[in-house]
């Protein structure tokens, strides 16, 4: 059992930042954030009391051992990578990034993929202009703590008009329960560029995960006409807590796609929000979740329409088993002036046991008349007619139910843009759903 650190103040933040040779501006930011963290309240997710989650547990800065080639990565991490990955690969192990590989032709084009810790020195101007601007440290205590503590991290810059056909794979992995595990992913896609990021967060803490907190954040900036596809699969072990705030800001005609698998074994608090700032911008958010054991999950998707004729779709599908509880929130906000905006959302929860709970809360907040908005929500059990139909063709009950449950999640699974990640996701689903 590790020591619980509940006091993390200005001095501790500054000392940690200095020990990592961070630039003065960042040291100052971290000091302020640590102060804020002491003052601010925890977020208050709808119908999900999180006060007793060990969210104030900080851990220590425990960098992983950097490696020069993929062959030397720890086996648990190497096993998650395709044998010959196309595109770029970046790996965070506990508190630091230990491996980065970027195709030389990308670098020649001006593409940057590196740890955020490196980028604060080498890409200072762009990082300062964007970091923690979509996810403000003032939002709540967890945001302030993240700003004070984030480590390792991923920085992606895609120059104007660059179209990256291969993905950037970011592996975030923790196996030290004492480590501070707080990666921040910052993606800046310049005008008319195209990029796909696949993020995979997991842990090797089976049986000893008690209390490890992943306090993560993702910020995506899609400049005018840029298309960003961000797929994330999270399957941290039981006993860990996974907190992720994902934010995207779309300029005119930009498009952001989120494809998220919330397959954690422990409690989870995630919030995936796109701000459609520019006219004609669009977002598409697809989330699946599977809850087992006595997990508690608060899963929120949000779209904020500011630009005219901006469009958003959000779909969340959750399967809850055993005694798991999920609160699924969908918030579509259309600001005054966002004429011709169109926001659609749907949340569906399938409950596989009498003690499982699911709650779907669709919320539309509309301050403009000339718009379209819609929502659909359903919470229910496996349809007995569907089971009967499959059984009437000779399929045994357990297999019929398995087909129906996997089918329920398939519309999101099939959208995962990389075959190897899709197959990995299906394996995780098989394991979680039995």
């Amino acid at each position, binding site marked *: 059992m590790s020591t619980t650190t509940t006091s993390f103040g200005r001095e501790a933040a500054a000392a940690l930042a200095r020990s990592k040779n961070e630039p003065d501006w960042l040291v100052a930011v971290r000091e302020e954030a640590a102060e804020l963290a002491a003052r601010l309240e925890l977020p208050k997710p709808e119908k999900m009391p999180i006060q007793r989650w060990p969210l104030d547990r900080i851990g220590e800065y425990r960098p992983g051992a950097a490696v020069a080639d993929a062959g030397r990565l720890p086996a648990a991490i190497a096993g998650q990578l395709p044998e010959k990955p196309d595109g770029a690969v970046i790996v965070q192990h506990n508190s630091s990034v230990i491996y980065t590989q970027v195709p030389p032709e990308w670098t020649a084009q001006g593409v940057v993929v590196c740890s955020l810790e490196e980028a604060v020195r080498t890409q200072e101007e762009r990082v300062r202009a964007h970091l923690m601007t979509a996810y403000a440290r003032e939002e709540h205590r967890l945001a302030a703590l993240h700003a004070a503590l984030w480590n390792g991290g991923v920085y992606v810059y895609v120059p104007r008009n660059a179209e990256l056909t291969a993905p950037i794979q970011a592996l975030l992995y923790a196996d030290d329960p004492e480590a501070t595990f707080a990666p921040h992913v910052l993606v800046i896609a310049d005008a008319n560029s195209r990029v796909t990021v696949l993020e995979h967060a997991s842990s090797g803490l089976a049986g000893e995960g008690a209390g490890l907190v992943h306090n993560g954040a993702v910020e995506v900036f899609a400049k005018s006409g840029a298309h960003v596809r961000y797929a994330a699969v999270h399957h941290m072990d039981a006993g860990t807590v996974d907190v992720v705030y994902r934010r995207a800001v779309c300029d005119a005609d930009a498009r952001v796609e989120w494809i998220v698998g919330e397959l954690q074994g422990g409690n989870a608090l995630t919030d995936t929000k796109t701000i459609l700032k520019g006219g004609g911008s669009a977002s598409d958010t697809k989330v699946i979740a599977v809850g087992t054991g006595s997990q508690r999950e608060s899963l929120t998707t949000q779209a904020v329409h500011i630009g005219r004729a901006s469009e958003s779709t959000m779909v969340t599908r959750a399967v809850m088993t055993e005694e798991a509880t999920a609160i699924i929130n969908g918030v579509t906000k259309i600001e005054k002036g966002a004429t011709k905006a169109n926001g659609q959302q749907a949340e569906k929860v399938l409950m596989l046991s009498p003690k499982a709970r699911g709650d779907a809360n669709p919320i539309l907040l509309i301050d403009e008349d000339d718009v379209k908005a819609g929502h659909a929500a359903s919470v229910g059990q496996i*349809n*007995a*007619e*569907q089971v*009967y*139909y*499959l*059984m*009437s*063709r*000779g*399929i*045994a*009950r357990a*297999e*019929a139910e398995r*087909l*129906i449950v*996997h*089918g*329920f*999640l*398939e*519309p999101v699974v099939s959208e995962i843009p990389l075959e190897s990640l899709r197959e990995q996701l299906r394996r995780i689903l098989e394991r979680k759903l039995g």
Partner: protein
Amino acid sequence: MSALFEIRGLRAAVEGKEILQGLNLRIGGGEVHAIMGPNGTGKSTLASSIMGHPKYEVTAGEVELDGRNVLEMEVDERARAGLFLAMQYPSEIPGVTNADFLRSAINARRGEGNEISLIRFIRQMEAKMKELDMNPEFMHRYLNEGFSGGEKKRNEILQMMMLEPKLVILDEIDSGLDIDALKIVAAGVNAMRSPERSFLVITHYQRLLNYVKPDYVHVMMQGRIVKSGGPELAERLEAEGYDWVKEELGIVDETVGQA
């Protein structure tokens, strides 16, 4: 010759209301039997009770296929024993492709270690879809999701052709089909006729029986078979309706279990 399929004294209830009131029927190998009757006389209840729909409770009687008691089996066991019901309202199963579903169904009856090879399965499915004039894309569509009424019926027949059952029950397979689709569906059924396979065709109308010639025709009223005959009985019903049957048997209200 012993019957392939036999129903004796079958009684069944839905939500506490008894619908089938002691129904008897013997079907020999290779025979086609038609069951006709007005709405509300228990025809679909018969089909669902034989298949084992959870809402239908069998309260008395026996149903045997090849001498085996069907009523003691789970729904999936009945199917693997050789029963097939082409449903009036097939379920939609989102996220499960037609091909994955059918392969699971075929493998369920072949058993572990004896699964059909993917190539062979695809070839078979493509060939049968062609016979039914189905667009090949239906192979990868989610099962019945967004299918029109006619497409669903064709998909039921496709499943029948792939699963090669011993006793096929067609429940109102003709409803919602235009004449061209009806001919295709009927051709599919006729192609499956063989001395080892029997059919129970449930229908309102004579129309289907012009294309699928029955050996025997039964009239159902009040949850029982009240009259049986040859194909000429269907023709007379088509021409004259059901009133003469009611008159002959002294039946005033032919329906059963109606509120």
